[in-house]
């Protein structure tokens, strides 16, 4: 059924496009993540940047997608009107993942890596804070803050901390949004939900017009 193909391909394009936007958002906001968080590739990047970006992008695009393919379904045959209405009904849409990560959604850093990296990140941040807290003239303080931000960014890139964040983001995109879902994952990726809805609707449509 052409409708199933086109709706599925459009859903794939939708989530892929949103993923690209989310990765751009991460790169734009990567300096705002605390270095200690970046070092551990923690949930902060996902919670504060990637997931809100995905929710905003997918929320808007999915709305258009549901409407467009409900219209296309109705256009195939007038007998499919009720099915098209049910397809576009907000209640049938899969819920967008919340910004707060559930246990199964968390990026699982190997335990042996976590201790030293936490320590390094905290040390650098503490040093930067100490400099800025000292009783020094504003110009010096500003300069110190600027330098400390630059150092943090440099360290973030050179130490691989930012890459760890990007990896955590990619892992999020793969597990929560794009799939394919690992068998043990409790939550199915959002795209899989959309494709399931398309498959189910296509099957019902075939039964109606058969």
């Amino acid at each position, binding site marked *: 059924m052409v409708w199933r193909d086109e709706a599925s*391909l459009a859903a794939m394009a939708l989530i*892929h496009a949103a993923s690209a936007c989310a990765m751009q958002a991460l790169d734009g906001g990567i300096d705002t993540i605390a270095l200690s968080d970046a070092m551990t590739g923690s949930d902060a990047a996902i919670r504060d940047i990637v997931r809100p970006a995905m929710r905003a992008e997918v929320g808007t695009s999915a709305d258009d997608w549901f409407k467009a393919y409900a219209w296309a379904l109705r256009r195939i045959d007038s007998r499919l009107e009720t099915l098209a209405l049910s397809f576009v009904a907000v209640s049938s849409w899969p819920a967008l993942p919340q910004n707060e990560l559930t246990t199964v959604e968390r990026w699982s850093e190997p335990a042996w890596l976590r201790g030293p990296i936490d320590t390094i990140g905290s040390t650098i941040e503490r040093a930067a804070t100490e400099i800025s807290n000292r009783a020094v003239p504003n110009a010096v303080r500003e300069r110190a803050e600027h330098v400390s931000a630059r150092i943090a960014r440099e360290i973030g890139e050179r130490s691989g901390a930012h890459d760890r964040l990007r990896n955590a983001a990619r892992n999020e995109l793969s597990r929560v949004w794009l799939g394919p879902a690992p068998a043990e994952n409790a939550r199915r990726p959002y795209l899989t939900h959309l494709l399931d809805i398309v498959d189910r609707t296509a099957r019902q449509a075939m039964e109606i017009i058969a």
Partner: protein
Amino acid sequence: MIGELFLRQLPAALETGIRSGQLGVYGSTIRNVANGQIAGFLQETSGLSKIANLVGNGPAWPLKLIGAGIQIVQNEQIKSGLSAVQQGIAVLNQLQIANLALGAAGIGVSVIGFAVMSKKIDGVREDVRALDGKLDRLLDEFARDRTEKLDEMLDRLLGLAERIDTRWSMSVDKAEIGWHRDADEADSLGNFFSGRARRLLEARPTAIKEATPLLDASAMASGLRVGALAQSGETKAAINVARDDAGRLERLTGDIGAADLARAWMAAPEWRTVPGSNAAGDALMLATTEARAIAMTLRCREAAAVTRAAPLIALEAKGIPARDWLSAAREEQDAPILLLES
């Protein structure tokens, strides 16, 4: 009498209907898109060979038609206005069936003769070669067969096409006996090709590119079988065989859609990319484009199979022997397609 029944060009009403989208070509039928009612039947003719000769060989040779058409228009207009070949290409383009007519599936019952069949089989061989041994490896793995064997079977298919063609010059009695035998051999060849395709797709449901030469060869064998039966006067058997072969093809590829292929490819290790990267976007675009093209080919092949005998059924209802219709199609040297209005 038979000459009065068919048309060599598309009547204005059908042309307008197709252009407006009210009518659509589905295999060898022209249908009303809204209600599925058949407006006309199509049958390929020997006139296809002139067009085929213009566009050379290779797996993509039918695709060269539109370009060839433009070229001919330019050259011929300078010389002597519209030629018969040019008009033929125009008809194929109006109906948007150039690829179908010159591809493996064909339009209606196969009567195109040895020359065009030879080109079609060359196209299948090119497709096998283009896979660079991949089909060979898969057949080794899943079907315990090798490409060399496939090549032999394609030779047999070519020989069969030649024999079926030659029998038109024999006495009716001799030809009928021969065509019966040919139908049996076409059955055996069709079983070979579709059996390999089935085993391949069962083992690797997404290996559709690799299965394509096998499916094409199977479609050609089916076309020859239906043609041989119809030519020998066994119209009912031809209709039944066409229906059975269409059912077999539908079971093989009917559930494979563009989305299934794109999804499977994107999940395959060789297509895997970094989520959210430009490479992932490019991969999805490529997968979508290729999957759409392949799905279109699958649907065209299925449509050709399921409507292959449709003109024969219509002729039978009018009391006209199928062989007369096929003989007219075979003798037609200019128009690539004959049209029978319903």
